[in-house]
């Protein structure tokens, strides 16, 4: 399974989202590859991804995709990430 953590410039916020998504997946005991990406590379990065994690602000920039887009409000809240990933993947 592939999950994309998306931010505007591909450093900083997406890296934090990736680290915390991996922690949430560990809690759920789900194996998945989490990739950090920026808006410029999301089309390619998300081509074979099931899920895109991102901020509500960036959703309009994603464009058309087959992946589930999950909006994360608090990138540091492992409870929020775990609950939303569980709903999407469970």
């Amino acid at each position, binding site marked *: 399974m592939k999950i994309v953590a998306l*931010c*505007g*410039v*591909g*450093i*900083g*916020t997406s*890296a*934090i*989202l990736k*680290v*915390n998504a991996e*922690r949430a997946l560990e809690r759920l005991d789900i194996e998945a590859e989490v990739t950090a990406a920026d*808006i410029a590379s999301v089309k390619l990065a998300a081509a074979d991804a099931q899920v895109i994690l*991102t*901020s*509500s*602000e*960036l959703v309009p*920039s994603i464009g058309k995709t087959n992946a589930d887009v999950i909006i994360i*409000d*608090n*990138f*540091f*809240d*492992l409870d929020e990430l775990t609950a939303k990933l569980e709903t999407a993947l469970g």
Partner: protein
Amino acid sequence: MSLPPLPLDAIDVGLHVPDWRAAIGAAGAALERSGSTAPGYTERMVGVIEEFGAYVVIAPGLALAHARPGPDVLTEGLSVVTLAEAVPFGHPHNDPVNVILGLAVTTGDEHVHFVAELANVFNDSSIIPALAAAPDAATVRSLLGIAEPTGEQATTEDKK
């Protein structure tokens, strides 16, 4: 796997700013003071928000100001600015913001090394209000678990 150095120069506590641009400006000025960036970097951090919106507000009250690596990043750096009065960035859930982290990295890879550390610190939800309430720069640094820089750090090269 540790956070970049955070000299007291790179911390500004209890600032009064009129809006998010000034808040980002303060985080950029703190990076410049500490020798991490040249002035153009601050404008690029503002540009990221102009282009993509307030997604840099990644948790309630917290903005992670940053831009891509570039020639205006002299060395990897972190700055912390806290505001006396929180300002809106335009984020639907996490506004208003009273703690701004300024981040400058020289390569994308380098950054990933300390981002896990940053996540460790901020996974504790009490840290943002604690930073916002910190009375001085030394308190901010100790809340983040960053040791005071010492002269010893520079001797690693000499021992070779």
